[in-house]
C-alpha cells in the first residue's frame, strides 16, 4: 500500500502528499499557500450554544424531505431497483442544484450493487455515466453510455447524455448524429433542444434561438427543468450574439423557474461579472459560499470591487483547489485557470492549466480562457489549436471573436518578423 515517506516539515507535508499520489499539482495552488497565513482559528470550543457552525440542507426544504422519504423507502426494501434508481437520480439532481459533489457519491453508493452486476441495467449505466461526467471522467462516462446503447439503441436518455458529452468536448459532428437519435427515440421536442444547443456552438446562434423559441412554445406545460434548460440556452445564445438585455431577461426567467439553482446562478453571475456588475453578484450568491463554483464568482466580484476581502477569498479558494488535488480528485481546469489568471495574476500558470483543460473540455468558456491566458502570457502560439478549432466550427461569440482577432494579428506579426 502506498504510504509515502519524506523528510519534510509539516508545512510541506500536504504538497508532498499530492506529489506522491501522482496527482498533477497545480502551480497556482502551490504558490498561493506559501502566501498569507490561513484565515482560520486553531481548533476551538465555541462559547455559545446558539453559534451557527455550518449550514446544512434544511429538513424544511421539500427536496430534502423527498430525498429522506426515498431513502427510507430504500432502507425498507434495499433490493428494490425502482427505489434505488429514483433515490440515485434524486441525489444527482439535488447535488447539481446546490453545487455539491457529495450527492454524486451518495448516488454512486445507492446503485453500486447493480453496477457490480455482470450486466448492469441500462438506467444504472446512464446514471453512473452521469456521475462520472459530473466528475469530468469523460472517457469512462462515454464507455458506459456506449455500453447502454449497445443494449438499447432506442434509449433516448443515453443518446442525449452522449450528445451533451460530445458538445462539452467539442466533437460537433458526433453530437449532430446523436441529436438525430434523440429525435428518433424521444420525439421532436427534445431533439429540437439538442439540435439548438449544437447550433449555438457552430455558427448558427440565430437559428438556435429560433428553434428554442419553438421549444419554449411547445414546452409551456412541460416540467420546470425543461423550461429552465430552454431559457438557459436562450440566454447563452443571446450572450454570444451580444444582446445583453435579451440574455439577462432569459437568465432571470430561468431563475424564476428554478430559484437558487447553482448552475443557473453561476452562469448569471458570469454574465454580471462580464457586464462589470460585481455588486449584484454579491447579492445573487450570498449564502451560497459552500459551492466552489459560486465561491469563485464571489471571489472575482470581491476583486472587481477592490474589496479588502480579496486576500481571504483567494486563500480559501486556493485551499479548496488544494483539497481537490490532495484527494486525488479529477482536474477542474476551467475554474483553476480562471482563478490563476484573474485572482493570482499568474498568466503562465493560467495558460498551463487552460491548455491542459482544453485537451478535454472545449465549451466556449474553455476556449475563451485559453485565448485570454495566451494573450496575458504573451504566448499567442499557445492558442493555435484553439484558433483553428474556432475557424473550423465558426463559433459566433462577441467576447471570443476580438480575442481571436488579437491573437491572429500577433501571430501574423510574429510570422512576418521571423527570418
Amino acid at each position, binding site marked *: *500500500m502506498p*504510504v*509515502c*515517506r*519524506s523528510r*519534510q516539515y*509539516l508545512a*510541506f*507535508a500536504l504538497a508532498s*502528499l499530492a506529489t506522491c499520489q501522482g496527482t498533477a499539482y497545480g502551480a497556482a495552488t502551490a504558490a498561493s499557500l506559501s502566501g498569507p497565513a490561513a484565515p482560520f482559528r486553531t481548533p*476551538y470550543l465555541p462559547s455559545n*450554544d*446558539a*453559534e*451557527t*457552525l*455550518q*449550514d*446544512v440542507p434544511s*429538513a424544511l*426544504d421539500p427536496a430534502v424531505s423527498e430525498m429522506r422519504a426515498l431513502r427510507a423507502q430504500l432502507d425498507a426494501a434495499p433490493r428494490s431497483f425502482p427505489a434505488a434508481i429514483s433515490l440515485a437520480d434524486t441525489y444527482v*439532481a439535488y447535488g*447539481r442544484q446546490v453545487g*455539491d*459533489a*457529495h450527492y454524486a*457519491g*451518495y448516488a*454512486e*453508493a445507492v446503485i453500486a450493487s447493480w453496477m457490480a452486476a455482470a450486466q448492469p441495467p441500462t438506467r444504472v449505466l446512464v446514471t453512473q455515466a*452521469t456521475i462520472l461526467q*459530473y466528475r*469530468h471522467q469523460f472517457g469512462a462516462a462515454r464507455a458506459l453510455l456506449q455500453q447502454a446503447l449497445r443494449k438499447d439503441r432506442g434509449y433516448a*436518455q443515453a443518446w*442525449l447524455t452522449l450528445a*451533451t458529452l460530445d458538445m*462539452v468536448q467539442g466533437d460537433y459532428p458526433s453530437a449532430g448524429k446523436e441529436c438525430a437519435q434523440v429525435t428518433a427515440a*424521444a*420525439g421532436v*421536442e*427534445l431533439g429540437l*433542444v439538442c439540435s439548438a444547443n449544437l447550433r449555438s456552438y457552430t455558427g448558427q446562434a440565430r437559428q438556435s434561438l429560433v428553434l428554442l423559441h419553438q421549444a419554449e412554445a411547445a414546452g409551456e*406545460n*412541460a416540467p420546470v*427543468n425543461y423550461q429552465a*434548460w430552454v431559457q438557459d440556452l436562450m440566454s447563452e445564445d443571446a450572450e454570444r450574439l451580444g444582446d445583453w438585455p435579451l440574455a439577462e431577461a432569459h437568465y432571470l426567467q430561468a431563475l424564476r423557474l428554478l430559484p437558487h439553482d447553482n*448552475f443557473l446562478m*453561476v452562469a448569471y453571475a458570469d454574465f454580471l461579472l462580464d457586464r462589470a456588475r460585481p455588486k449584484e453578484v454579491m447579492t445573487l450568491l450570498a449564502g451560497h459560499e459552500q459551492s*466552489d*463554483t459560486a465561491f469563485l464568482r464571489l471571489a472575482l466580484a470581491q476583486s472587481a470591487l477592490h474589496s479588502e476581502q480579496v486576500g481571504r477569498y483567494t*486563500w480559501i479558494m486556493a485551499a*479548496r483547489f488544494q*483539497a*481537490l488535488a*490532495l484527494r*486525488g480528485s479529477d482536474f*477542474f481546469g*476551467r475554474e*483553476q485557470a480562471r482563478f490563476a489568471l484573474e485572482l493570482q495574476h499568474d498568466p503562465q500558470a493560467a495558460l498551463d492549466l487552460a491548455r491542459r483543460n482544453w485537451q478535454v473540455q472545449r465549451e466556449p468558456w*474553455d476556449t475563451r480562457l485559453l485565448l485570454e491566458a495566451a494573450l496575458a502570457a504573451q504566448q499567442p502560439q499557445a492558442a493555435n489549436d484553439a484558433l483553428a478549432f474556432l475557424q473550423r466550427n465558426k463559433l459566433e461569440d462577441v467576447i471570443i471573436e476580438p480575442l481571436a482577432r488579437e491573437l491572429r494579428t500577433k501571430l501574423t506579426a510574429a510570422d512576418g518578423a521571423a527570418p
Partner: protein
Amino acid sequence: MNIRTFAPLVLSALVLGSTARAHSASDAYLNLSMDDGHRGGTFVVHGQWDIALRDLDFVLTLDDDGDGRLTWGEVRRHQADIERYAYAYLGFTANSGTRCAIRPARQMIDDHADGAYVALFFDVVCTQAPVRLRLDYNLFFAIDPSHRGIFVMNNGASVATAVLSPQNAAIDLAL
C-alpha cells in the same frame, strides 16, 4: 411523445449542462503524531481526526430543529453519537495481531476552507510497542465511495502521508 413524459430525461439533460464545474466532495483529515511513544509499559500515538459537520449531519441528522443551521448546541448534544459513529470506522492493529485501543480525548471545532469540521482528539494505546501498526479506515465509504481520508503521520522530523479510499482502506505504518 408528449413533453410531459420527458421529466426524467430533462432532469438528466440539466445535470449534464453542469459538467464543467468544480465541486467539493467529502474529505476527512486524519493526523497521527508520535512523541517518544512510550508511556510506562504502553505505547501511545496521538490522533486528531477532522470530519465535516455536513457529512455527519447527513448520517446522524444533527440539525435537530431542521432549520438548516447547525449550531454548537446541536453539535454538543450529539457528541456521544458522533464519537460512537466515527470510531466504529477506525481501527489500529499491532503487528502482533493485537488490537490497540482508541481512547477518545476531546472534541473541538476546526474550520476548514469548505466549512466547519468536528475535530476528534484521541490516543491510540497499544499494550506493547509494535514495529508496525495497521490502520483500518472505513468512514463513510459504504454511503459515499468518493469520500477520502487525507492521512498525515508525523514521526519526529519524518512525515508519512496517504489518501485513504475504498480501494486503499488499510495501510501499514512503520514505526
